[in-house]
């Protein structure tokens, strides 16, 4: 069990810095990804689930570009402010800005991905010919 856990943590090390002070912990064990990444992944899953409800998707119809800007802006501002030393964001801020991005990214990206895959499938499937009349 511990070996599998270590391997999983090592795997996630490729996509996250895993700094302990920037990660959420459960029973003194830090998560395999930092709080921002965790916010992104969990909220992306929630955003993906929201795309399953057509009435919810109607609110976002035709707002793809704006939605992506709204999604990215808080996280990029938070990161930029940290880099230039304006302020040091805490785990809560990181989690929230990551979740904000993940939620809207899921809502924006998943329908496009599904439509693109459907386009590819439709290209592969030959269209059924109607029998000639008479």
């Amino acid at each position, binding site marked *: 069990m511990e070996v599998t856990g270590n391997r999983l943590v090592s*795997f996630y090390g*490729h*996509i*996250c*810095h895993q*700094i*302990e*002070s*920037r990660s959420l912990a459960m029973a003194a064990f830090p998560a395999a990804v930092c709080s*921002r*990444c965790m916010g*992104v992944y969990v909220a992306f899953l929630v955003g993906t689930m929201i*795309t*399953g409800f*057509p009435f919810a*998707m109607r609110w*976002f*119809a*035709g*707002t*793809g*570009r*704006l*939605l*992506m*800007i709204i999604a990215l802006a808080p996280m990029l501002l938070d*990161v930029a402010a940290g880099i230039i030393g304006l302020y040091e964001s805490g785990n809560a801020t990181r989690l929230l800005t990551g979740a904000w991005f993940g939620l809207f*990214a899921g*809502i*924006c*990206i998943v*329908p*496009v*991905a*599904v*439509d*693109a*895959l*459907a*386009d*590819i*499938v*439709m290209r592969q*499937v030959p*269209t*059924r010919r109607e029998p000639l009349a008479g």
Partner: protein
Amino acid sequence: MQGNRSIFYYALLGGVISGATIGLPVLGFLNCACCAGVMLGGFLAVFFAKKDLGEEPSSVSRTDALQLGVLSGLAGTVIGTILHGIVMLVAGDVMVDLVSTILRDGDLRNSLPPELLIALDEFMAEQGGFSLIDLTGHFFIWLFLAPLFGLVGGLIGYSLLRKDSQEPPSLSSPSEIPT
């Protein structure tokens, strides 16, 4: 996708950026933020294609964006693994020397955050020189991760660069697929 250049050309452009962030030591820190470097590669592949082919809706479709993202990730994996191998062969010792200098220098050591020192200690513990097994492991891990995050980058690029009137987000209903 319409135009003189193939989709592979733009995917390769994105792949070079992804590969640099996968294989080079300093740029590699970009991937510590949800694979931002690989996503940037997918995004830029779509950006370059869109820039060359114009703003028309038919120039870069959502299918093209998806394919550009995945292909840039695949190209990035190959380029990144080659770069990683070269860095390990040529500059592996230089990196170890640099890190050990940092760790030995008392003033420098005190000025660094403890988390970074732990990470540097772990880096030193993992150093075993060039190994073909490590390189193969590196290749297969990124073969899984890079196309996935490249795809996300490509679709972020498509969503950001398109006009909102073009192909609004709507899940395809199963009835649209011909039987």
